[in-house]
């Protein structure tokens, strides 16, 4: 590992490493003995360099950087060395470390709401770090805080500095965090999942800002993320972590192009890609090992399709492979090339049913027809005498239909009305405006008995598989429940539960276990089995994979794809991850502030989007390919989603529209005055923009 540090140093020329981490291990005290969270991680950073640390939850990526900062609880045992300009930080007292934290090394955390103290104003919190390290007076520090807020793009900085964290949106809070982190011009910037909690459009803004911040401070940056696309876009080097260990590292381009460790290959193969819609996903079977009880050999052995007997007994070290400063921890790394081993792919392609009746769309029956649906919420004031002071239009007259065997992806930023739409549909009650027709039956005309019968045909899978399964019921009872409520006889129910469990890739013997005994991916499979119990025609999927790690997500996506074909299901698929939608949806509806702005066949929407919002959304999604990703030009939308209580006149998107900003003022007037309606753009594509024009935003599409 020493040699690795040296090799990076050589590559960077005469610069001595700014930050050098060697053989870092972290152990926590567990119930039965120490639990190793990080097991011997080494890396070195030169000024201005960006290192991406990638791994799934529990891989030790965040713990390793908290160890660098000295921010782990006192019960954690940290060994190895962390040298900042040659000075070892491990073993320094809290007081000495406090002088380094925030001044030499700064950190940006994942969730900017919980990472800011709720009871102090934003300006005070930034000023605090200036006062601690620069000894500035309170007034000077506050002035500096305002400058910093201005620099990170907070409009009205002087006034906003007096506001509190809860008054900021997620993206704005992350800007505040960045302002705080660069306040003392640090040498090293550690960003721990800085964009995970944000929408793609905001993620693009924040990533751009991080890049600017790095340029201003010339800080070496550690970017911790689970998103391979983000790393592809900004990192120079990548370090892949698995079960507390670095399993592959090297420069980003060769690692992505020619990964040598099966885990890296699996990760890259399990990410759905916006630019390669047809490419099947190769999930990594199983789930990461419990670090408290690691197997003797390679920690990845149980999930590795190319394991040999040596892997069971000897854990491979991180060793040089493939030249060019590449390292991998795999006994077979030299045999693997371009994701293949002796000509065969390391991860064989999964079998997914593809047989489809290719009836044209118009001839298939409509499973769901939504026409001019609207949902408004009154804003009220007063405790005793409530009076209405305004309305929030969550969904404002949207129309779409889903045909048999079709998956419609509903996409948009959080707050655009996706969830309201599906909840209104699932309620099966007459909407306050418009109509919802399920399998030819208008829900407005149903009595309660008919409504109950119709529920059989419309089922839902929720986002969080843990929260949507009662932890006190065995899995068999959970899946059984819909059958019981429709009075299916007991013997049939038992058989059906077994059938369903095997349908979703679980073993029928699992019926007696409880949800806590399953991993996230398995729990989501249970959720799917429950939804399928009554043989529905339409499955509403509300962010079904967003709570899962990528390697797990791929398996669930493949299952959904397979079930759709085999059972002839229709999906209403709600997701914020456009790559996932690209992978699974046949048609796509893009939603913005309660309206559909672009609807059409997935191929059309993704390859030749005509609405500037769709274009911006698509261009904001990072692609896990360093070469392609760095050649893309981003179309950034400005600012945050406006409040639905206070919408701009005319086109709702104009306040953030990149196209509007470029238009001459006479053309702008039309956007200001007239609210555009959905119009056909040829083929199965319609968009709501006065100046719609095709624009290709994905490479190689």
């Amino acid at each position: 590992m020493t040699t690795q540090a040296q090799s990076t140093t050589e590559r960077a020329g005469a610069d001595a490493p700014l930050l050098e981490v060697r053989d870092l291990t972290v152990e926590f005290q567990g119930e039965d003995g120490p639990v190793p969270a990080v097991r011997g991680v080494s890396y070195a950073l030169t000024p201005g360099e960006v290192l991406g640390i990638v791994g799934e939850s529990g891989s030790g990526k965040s713990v390793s950087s908290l160890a660098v900062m000295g921010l782990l609880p006192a019960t954690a045992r940290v060994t190895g060395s962390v040298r900042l300009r040659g000075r070892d930080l491990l073993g320094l007292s809290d007081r000495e470390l406090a002088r380094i934290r925030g001044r030499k090394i700064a950190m940006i955390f994942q969730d900017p709401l919980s990472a800011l103290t709720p009871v102090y104003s934003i300006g005070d919190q930034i000023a605090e770090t200036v006062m601690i390290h620069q000894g500035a007076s309170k007034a000077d520090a506050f002035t500096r805080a305002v400058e910093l807020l201005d620099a990170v793009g907070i409009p009205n900085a002087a006034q906003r500095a007096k506001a509190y964290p809860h008054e900021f949106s997620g993206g704005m809070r992350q800007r505040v965090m960045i302002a705080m982190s660069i306040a003392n011009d640090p040498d090293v910037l550690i960003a721990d999942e800085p964009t995970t909690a944000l929408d793609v459009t905001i993620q693009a803004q924040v990533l751009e800002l991080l890049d600017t911040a790095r340029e201003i401070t010339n800080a070496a940056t550690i970017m911790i993320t689970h998103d391979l696309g983000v790393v592809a876009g900004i990192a120079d080097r990548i370090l892949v972590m698995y079960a507390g260990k670095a399993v592959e590292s090297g420069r980003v381009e060769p690692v992505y192009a020619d990964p040598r460790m099966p885990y890296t290959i699996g990760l890259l193969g399990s990410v759905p890609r916006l630019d390669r819609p047809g490419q099947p996903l190769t999930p990594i079977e199983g789930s990461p090992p419990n670090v408290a009880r690691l197997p003797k050999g390679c920690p990845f052995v149980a999930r590795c399709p190319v394991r040999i007997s040596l892997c069971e007994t000897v854990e491979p070290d991180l060793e040089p492979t493939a030249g060019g400063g590449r390292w991998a921890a795999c006994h077979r790394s030299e045999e693997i090339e371009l994701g293949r081993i002796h000509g065969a792919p390391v991860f064989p392609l999964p079998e997914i049913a593809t047989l489809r009746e290719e009836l044209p769309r118009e001839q298939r029956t409509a499973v769901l027809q939504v026409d001019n649906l609207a949902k408004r919420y009154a804003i009220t004031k007063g405790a005793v005498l409530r009076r209405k002071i305004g309305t929030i239009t969550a969904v404002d007259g949207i129309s779409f239909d889903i045909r048999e065997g079709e998956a419609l992806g509903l996409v948009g930023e959080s707050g655009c009305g996706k969830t309201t739409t599906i909840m209104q549909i699932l309620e099966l009650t007459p909407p306050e405006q418009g109509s919802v027709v399920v399998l030819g039956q208008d829900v407005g005309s149903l009595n309660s008995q008919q409504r109950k019968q119709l529920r059989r045909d419309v089922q839902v899978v929720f986002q969080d598989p843990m929260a949507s399964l009662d932890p006190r019921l065995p899995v068999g009872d959970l899946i059984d429940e819909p059958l019981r409520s429709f009075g299916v006889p007991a013997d049939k129910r038992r058989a059906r539960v077994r059938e369903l469990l095997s349908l979703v890739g679980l073993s029928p013997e699992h019926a007696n276990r409880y949800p806590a005994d399953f991993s996230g991916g398995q729990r989501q499979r249970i959720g799917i089995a429950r939804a399928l119990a009554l043989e529905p025609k339409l499955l509403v999927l509300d962010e079904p994979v967003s709570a899962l790690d990528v390697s797990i997500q791929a398996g669930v996506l493949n299952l959904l794809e397979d079930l759709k074909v085999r059972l002839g299901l229709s999906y209403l698929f709600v997701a914020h991850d456009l790559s996932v939608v690209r992978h699974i949806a046949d048609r796509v509806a893009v939603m913005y502030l309660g309206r559909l702005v672009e609807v059409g066949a997935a191929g059309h929407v993704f390859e030749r989007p005509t609405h500037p919002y769709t274009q911006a959304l698509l261009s904001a999604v990072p692609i896990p390919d360093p070469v392609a990703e760095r050649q893309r030009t981003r179309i950034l939308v400005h600012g945050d989603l406006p409040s639905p209580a206070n919408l701009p006149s005319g086109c709702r998107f104009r306040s953030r529209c990149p196209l509007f900003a470029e238009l001459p003022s006479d053309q702008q007037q039309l956007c200001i005055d007239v609210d555009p309606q959905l119009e056909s753009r040829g083929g199965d594509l319609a968009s709501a923009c006065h100046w719609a024009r095709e624009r290709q935003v994905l490479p190689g599409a």
Partner: protein
Amino acid sequence: MGRFLLKRLANYAVLIVVATTMAYMIASLALHPRARYEGRNPPPPAAVVDSTLTAYGVNDKDPLVGRYVHWIGGVLHGDFGKTVTGGSINAELGARALVSLRLLLIGSILGAVLGVLVGVVSAVKQYRLTDRFFTAFSFFFIATPVFFTAVLLKFGALTVNDAAGTTLLNYVGYATPGLDAGFLGSAWDQVNHLVLPTLSIALAQIAYFSRYQRNSMLDVMGSDFLRTAQAKGLTRRRALFKHGLRTALIPMATLLAYSFGTLVVGATFTEKIFAWHGMGEWLVDSITNNDINVTATVAMFTAVFILLSGFLSDVIYAVLDPRVRVS
């Protein structure tokens, strides 16, 4: 924010009227002052009983609403009426309120401050010896009823006094009757009388608050913003006090304020055991004496205090938490 507090205050005023009215009605229905007179030996003539009861405003033959209106009208003019034996409630109310408040104010403030402190220390030293000691202490006082701890304190004082051969600690009443020791002397005498009853209140309060404060502090200690504060360059200790404690106090505000309000009559046991003639004792006595007016008066006094506490908690909350202030 001022408007918000004013609105709350108006709400509280309405609640006080409701609470007092209900207390008066229930007391009138449940208590029988007539029995007091008719039970005398020899029984006074019926006409005398009636006229006496009417004079005190507690005759069950007069319409209830009329009696209530008369009483509440008096209250609005600062006259709480007569006790069942014809004494003035006003005179006694003032004296007893002072006795109770002296006891409770000090006990509660001590309990709150020390409780918060003990809770914070417990949380910071989680699972260490200090924490375990405070936990044992808290559970002891939470688990033992106050009449037991009070008697225990009394017993302790007795032992101390015996050992010293002189009365070091007083445990009866709030002053030595007939003491003539000048201003300083009698001030010291009163403080001395305060020690044990105050302890009996404060110990229970410390035990109770420290558990809540410990939990709330532990929540905060695991929070991301505390990590951010340290990442900015604060030492752990400073981060804990500046960012942690301030946030951890917010959920305590309501608890602290309301528990003071309920103590006002809740200290009955302490008052009885240490022979302090306060509000709690008065309430119990008035019920056994079938005294409607006193019962209603004490109920009103309690309502006022509980709602004042509520108001106080609103103010503290607003001061501590900007999220309330803004919306």
